[in-house]
């Protein structure tokens, strides 16, 4: 982790991946600092992948206590009540992750993410918010954008067997392979606030329905003061009311957001392991690309639905003209 060159140990351990992205990219990875908040199955998978990839450090934030439910889809928590009783999710996951790669500094940060100052985020190169509330996602994204250092910002949300990833790399320059040459490219990412406030009407019809469904549920949970995932079938009438209002405000028909999809998302409180592994894998890949500066990044939403096995990228910003 120290010094400019990879150590002999790092070169041996990372041999197979250095053959993929090169030694320079690996060096950049070993110097990167990742903040992760909100740990359930998908984020656990993400953490495993970036720890194996050999990032510099991973800081975990999740003060919820481990319960039997936490075990679902989360390989980092051993099923031993004596071991996890009284501990927080972050603490248990921290111990497991250290095992996967002793060269990565894995630590726990206690407290409320949304209460942190802007300066707090300056320590990090990447911030990942898992299962966050609308307010938290907006607030943290704004703070990251205020910093002079560019902090890569990601949100991830998995409900039932669906997943959403959001990416904000601000103004991002990267190299892309075009035939045999390397080309310099630039992308401009909208902020989280902008990306979730885009008027629905100009958005192309074939856009993933999950984008709209997630926005409805975000609003529901904020209005009702619910924590992420704190919902059930009983809430469906309220959720459908919100959907109706949002559709009206955006001048789109109600068929824009299928009721069946909303029902799935509010009743499916447990995560689905294969979906966690896929979304966690994609997220890890994106973070690796952003840190190494190599390869075209995802812009700016990714949706996965295990029901049809499809993963789609959606580029949603105010650039749509009505």
């Amino acid at each position: 982790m120290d010094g400019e060159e990879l150590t002999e140990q790092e070169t041996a351990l990372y041999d197979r991946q250095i053959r993929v992205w090169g030694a320079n990219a690996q060096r950049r990875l070993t110097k990167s600092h990742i903040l992760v908040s909100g740990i359930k199955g998908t984020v656990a998978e993400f953490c495993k992948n970036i720890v194996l990839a050999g990032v510099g450090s991973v800081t975990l934030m999740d003060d919820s206590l481990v319960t039997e439910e936490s075990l679902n889809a989360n390989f980092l928590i051993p099923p031993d009540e004596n071991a996890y009783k009284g501990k927080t999710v972050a603490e248990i996951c921290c111990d497991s992750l250290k095992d996967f790669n002793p060269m990565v500094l894995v630590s726990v940060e206690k407290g409320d993410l949304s209460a942190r100052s802007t300066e707090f985020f300056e320590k990090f190169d990447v911030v990942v918010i898992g299962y966050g509330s609308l307010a938290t996602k907006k607030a943290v994204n704004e703070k990251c954008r205020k910093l002079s250092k560019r902090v890569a910002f990601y949100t991830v949300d998995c409900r039932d067997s669906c997943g959403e990833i959001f990416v904000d790399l601000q103004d991002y320059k990267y190299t892309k392979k075009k035939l045999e040459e390397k080309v310099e490219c630039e992308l401009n990412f909208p902020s989280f606030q902008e990306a979730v406030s885009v008027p629905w009407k100009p958005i192309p019809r074939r856009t993933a329905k999950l984008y709209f469904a997630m926005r409805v549920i975000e609003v529901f949970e904020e209005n009702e003061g619910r924590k992420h995932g704190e919902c059930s079938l009983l809430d469906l009438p309220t959720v459908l009311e919100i959907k109706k209002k949002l559709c009206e405000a955006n001048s789109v028909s109600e068929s824009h957001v299928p009721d069946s999809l909303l029902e799935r998302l509010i009743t499916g409180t447990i995560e689905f392991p294969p979906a966690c592994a896929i979304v966690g894998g994609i997220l890890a890949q994106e973070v690796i690309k952003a840190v190494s500066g190599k390869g075209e990044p995802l812009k700016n939403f990714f949706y996965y639905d295990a029901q049809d096995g499809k993963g789609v990228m959606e580029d949603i910003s105010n650039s749509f003209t009505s």
Partner: protein
Amino acid sequence: MDAPQSKSRDLDKLLLRSGNLVGPGFFPGTDLRDDIREYVKVLVVGAGGLGCELLKDLALSGFRNLDVIDMDRIEVTNLNRQFLFRLEDVGKPKAEVAAKRVMERVSGVEIVPHFSRIEDKELEFYNDFNIIALGLDSIEARRYINGVACGFLEYDEDDTPRSETIKPMVDGGTEGFKGHARVIVPGVTPCFECTIWLFPPQVKFPLCTLAETPRNAAHCIEYAHLIKWHEVHGGKSFDPDEPEHMKWVYDEAIKRAELFGIPGVTYSLTQGVVKNIIPAIASTNAIISAACALETLKIVSGCSKTLANYLTYNGGEGLHTKVTEFERDKECLVCGPGILIELDTSITLQKFIEMLEEHPKLLLSKASVKHGKDSLYMQAPPVLEEMHRPNLSKPLYDLMGRVEKDTVHVFGTSLKNEEKQSSLTKLRVVFKEVDGVADMDTAIWRTNSKRKTPF
């Protein structure tokens, strides 16, 4: 002759019937019948990058009976993605450590490890499983398992596959940011052999390029490895795990590269070319394995359409996935009804085995012959060869129980593209003139791509 009974034949009803399944609206998770996952047996072939992820995903998804087979021991270069292994595990068998670690993390799952080569297991071993999930890194290994699984397949009178003999496979493969996941349902989807043309030809440099006209770094390396080594070291075999050998090849490759003005020879590349190293990262393995686990769940529960039938994935530049529906090759030697061979009832087993060598579609030498559960003749080991030798002089018709026609499996070395490889092939043997009249003339056999008689 009946097919070998599988322990959970009643569950076979749940396996994919031919044609597409249209599932009800619910999927997956809590709606899945837990009892299915309690009973279903899944074999994971390979405990490496894909295997580790597969075991974890299947265990977390509720499967209770898993087996894993892998002949390798853990190496340091595995640790960047095979997350079940630690530095102190280096040297231990992959299958055993993987099984142990997953059972520690997921309660209720039973994983039986097999530290062995896939070829060393009996056919009955494979038949015991409802689904086989592959996490392999070579074409040969995939071909072998494909041959085994498709070997269980039987067809009825109308040439439709008999559903209780269908052994589905889910196959994943990765390299760097790229990967694929596919579902193989023998008799329904294409099998591995049907789509063998999908794979680019294995890199084999022409000898003259290596010897006379190298153009790139890999040519220089292979010159040192394949040609110069033997010139200098005579009979001593090259050991890729011996650092001194590798260094020697590297030094020679550098010399040759300098001679021809070719850049790019590094020690790392030398290792890569000589050992055929596949670049690999954790995230691609995680994604592809999860896709395979998902398909395994769908096959078992039968409540949703499975992947039809080949997914390719590329995450290097942006994100690209594509699903292609490939079609079966009805003439496929492996998953098809089998090559038709018509014989006289007088043909001895010895003569039959000799005929296989000249058969244009087989070119099979040193064949062992199996009829259902019975081994008619085995080339090895010596004890069994001796035991079966008396059969050689007997008519095949008699050995097969004097049935008019039946399926026979032959296993031997086939010569394809001037390369010898082990192969297991299915044959439909049909006896002519089965009315007691012995035909003492030399047997006439025909291969037939258009069946003249229903089988």
